[in-house]
């Protein structure tokens, strides 16, 4: 008998968007207030874990067709590449730079290369957490 999980599935469909919003907010607020790549990535991974709890693995992998081991590898690659980018400009490895730009919608915004490094950290955390959860849940 297929178990009737309507309440959990319906609430998951709504709550996942709140969790994803909080994850993006935490990621971008990390420069000036609590947050950053690590906990942004963890919250993002918790959204995926909630989807995996409410639905089954095949449905989620059809909807989100990423190989999460490759996501982790891509995150480490981005983090190392932003560190190497400083060498191109004759600075030591992992030197950060920032300056203010006048963007069309956001106005005067300060953009820093640390955000790219943090994006790499976030992708690595998401990939590692989700692939751990997937690999310990599959062989039961």
């Amino acid at each position, binding site marked *: *008998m297929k178990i009737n999980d309507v*309440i*959990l599935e319906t*609430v998951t469909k*709504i*709550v996942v968007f*709140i969790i994803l*919003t*909080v994850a993006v*907010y935490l990621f971008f607020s990390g420069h000036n207030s609590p947050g950053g790549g690590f906990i942004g990535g963890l919250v993002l991974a918790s959204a995926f874990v909630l989807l995996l709890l409410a639905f089954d693995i095949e449905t989620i992998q059809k909807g989100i067709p990423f190989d999460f081991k490759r996501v982790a590898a891509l995150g480490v690659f981005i983090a190392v590449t932003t560190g190497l980018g400083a060498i191109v400009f004759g600075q030591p490895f992992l030197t950060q730079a920032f300056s203010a730009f006048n963007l069309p919608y956001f106005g005067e915004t300060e953009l820093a290369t640390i955000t790219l490094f943090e994006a790499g950290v976030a992708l690595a955390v998401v990939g590692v957490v989700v692939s751990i959860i997937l690999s310990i849940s599959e062989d039961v």
Partner: protein
Amino acid sequence: MNVSEMDEFIGAFLILIGGIISVISAMGIIRFPDVYTRAHAATKSTTLGVLLSLVGAFIYIWMTENYISVRLVLGIVFVFITAPVSGHLIIRAAYRSKVNMTEDTVEDELKAILDKQTEVH
């Protein structure tokens, strides 16, 4: 008492009420006889207590710092949606693993429906 003190008082009062309701809910968890009535105390009144505390903090920060905290609004919505569902899932798991009800129970309507379903399949 001018307006800003009044607003601070409203925020602090909501936080106090939320704390009192949380204490009442904890007493309910201790004193109720079985898992179903305990979950009734744990989900309903704790949700109300947490929501009142969050609303009080939201009003207090809004009035004193003049800062509308979007995180608190998201937290209020999130707790309001998820806390009853978590209670529902815990109770559902308890019922399906045949946790006994208290002896004062009068009627178990779900049992008849579940028995009929297992006969059909």
